């Protein structure tokens, strides 16, 4: 037994590793199967969106920010629009608020479904992926119906929405909401008491509440560690305080607790969607009634000179936003997400900064995997639900 090699081994995992959810690279130092140290390297997906946004007019920034966190596109654009609306000092109509709540909650289900599917697949439950993507397809179809685009609908606008709801929207959403809860039970049948899944996720990637605070972790990761922080409850926006919903929490702080929190969140989102859908009339105001911000309807553009001029001005030079800075947080699928924006009073933002929950989660990854097994690294990366587009921007 004298010639057993005992030195540690350095393993380069990524950036093109199938289970790193994009292009995360980890340099792991292994002692046998135990991870001794881990150094995450990010930036492979850096596209300079914040710099580009400074060159664009306010409305043109919306498609850009949707591409940051590409699994929760509409939460991003909603957060950006709400910051811009705060600077403009405008209050969107009640109907717009309800539609935004509905869209945000559908987006949360959408994002959690991708997470559940990929995370399940990585720990060996391939059928979960097939099931989740089946239901996600329905949500993408709803996006397509809504805006003609499945992943990045760009349906939000500063001051409201791009256009009114399409015909058949209520029925499509209602059909999804009726179909989805039993399917959620199906996923739970596959995982919640699955012996293999429990062994792969319980006591794996544990993070304590103190560490979660120190690393600025929010969203499902923090709620799985026992914090009840949810922007929707702490700083209600869009009238979330008038809806009836719970914030699920767990105390274990491990990968399994995060799974439980996210599945419970999907159930709460269904409840929220139903309440929002009840409040939305099929037609009505879909943007703030301000000719400086909202373009005139097309039939007026084709028939009235003033509407044509107004249309031309809005689409060529945009609108100006008063000088100031604002940060309006929203609860995205990954936790508190918001845009710090600074305006110099012109038609382009001076500075756009996204507070990216994935960046903080990725930073805390090292804390969660050091001391564990290398096989658990995959389960932990899956459980924190990082989106590299949000990390690198």
């Amino acid at each position, binding site marked *: 037994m004298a010639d057993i090699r005992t030195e540690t081994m350095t393993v380069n995992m990524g950036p093109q590793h199938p289970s790193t959810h994009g292009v995360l690279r980890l340099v792991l130092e292994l002692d046998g199967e135990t991870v001794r140290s881990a150094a995450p390297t990010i*930036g492979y997906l850096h596209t*300079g969106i914040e*710099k580009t946004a400074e060159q664009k007019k306010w409305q043109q920034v919306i498609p850009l920010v949707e591409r940051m966190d590409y699994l929760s596109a509409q939460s991003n654009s909603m957060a950006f629009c709400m910051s811009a609306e705060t600077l403009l000092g405008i209050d969107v109509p009640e109907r717009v608020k309800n539609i935004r709540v509905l869209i945000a909650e559908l987006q949360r289900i959408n994002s959690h479904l991708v997470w559940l599917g990929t995370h399940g697949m990585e720990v060996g439950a391939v059928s979960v992926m097939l099931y989740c993507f089946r239901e996600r397809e329905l949500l993408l179809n709803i996006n397509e119906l809504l805006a003609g685009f499945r992943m990045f609908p760009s349906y939000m606008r500063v001051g409201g929405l791009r256009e009114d709801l399409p015909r058949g929207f209520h029925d499509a959403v209602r059909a999804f909401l009726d179909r989805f809860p039993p399917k959620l039970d199906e996923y739970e049948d596959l995982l919640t008491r699955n012996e293999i899944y429990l062994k792969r996720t319980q006591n794996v990637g544990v993070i304590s509440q103190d560490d979660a605070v120190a690393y600025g972790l929010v969203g499902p990761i923090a709620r799985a560690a026992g914090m009840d922080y949810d922007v929707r409850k702490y700083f209600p926006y869009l009238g979330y305080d008038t809806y009836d919903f719970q914030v699920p929490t767990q105390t274990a702080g491990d990968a399994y607790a995060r799974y439980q929190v996210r599945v419970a969140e999907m159930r709460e989102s269904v409840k929220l969607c139903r309440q929002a859908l009840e409040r939305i009339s099929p037609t009505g105001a879909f943007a703030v009634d301000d000719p400086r911000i909202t373009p005139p309807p097309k039939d007026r553009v084709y028939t009235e000179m003033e509407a044509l001029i107004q249309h031309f001005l809005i689409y060529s030079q945009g609108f100006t936003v008063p*000088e*100031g*800075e604002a*940060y309006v947080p929203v609860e995205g699928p990954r936790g508190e997400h918001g845009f710090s924006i600074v305006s110099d009073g*012109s038609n382009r933002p001076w500075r756009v900064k996204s*507070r990216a929950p994935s960046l903080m989660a*990725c930073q805390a990854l090292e804390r969660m995997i050091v001391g564990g097994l290398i096989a658990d690294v995959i389960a932990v990366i899956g459980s924190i639900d990082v989106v590299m587009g949000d990390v690198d921007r």
Partner: protein
Amino acid sequence: MTAADLIQAIQDRFPQGVRAAHSYRGDATVIISRESLIEVARTLKEDAAFQMNFLMDVTAVDFSSFGKKPSPAFFSSSGVAVRPSPEIPDRERWPGPPGPERFAVVYHFFSLPLKHRLRVEVPLGDAEEADAEVDSLVSLWAGADWLEREVWDMFGIRFRGHPNLKRILLYEEFVGHPLRKDYPVNKRQPLIGPVN
């Protein structure tokens, strides 16, 4: 605590450190000198009156040429420009950039137990190299590490006492700091191949 109370409490505690404060659109903002940053941050975190246990965000803003240049309406080559205008009237006006200095490092603090937020801004000049430097908060919040590295990467603002102040999103060979306003948006950097 309301925004006004919060500002008052901080001003009472740090009469020298606080240069200005305002509440705009409900957000409390305190502008402090860079010498007092560590002290203010520690008090915010540990004092029972504030309990700001979360450091939500660290970022920076380059205020050079702020509000002076007209902004192109179509493409910069077309020559048609839009000047900053008070077209949409503003009843409570924003007091403007935090100072005459070029940069401002912006911290967003949040207190989970007391449910209040605070924005702290530290103006930094760039006349000399040592001016664009501020104390690091990594000793107080572990999460400040990457956020401060990102600010260094994008703005070239150094953080004194940071354990590993390297570029994070860009690569080491990158020249310049892209979110500075004097970095041209269409500038190309040479491609780098694998080492060796």
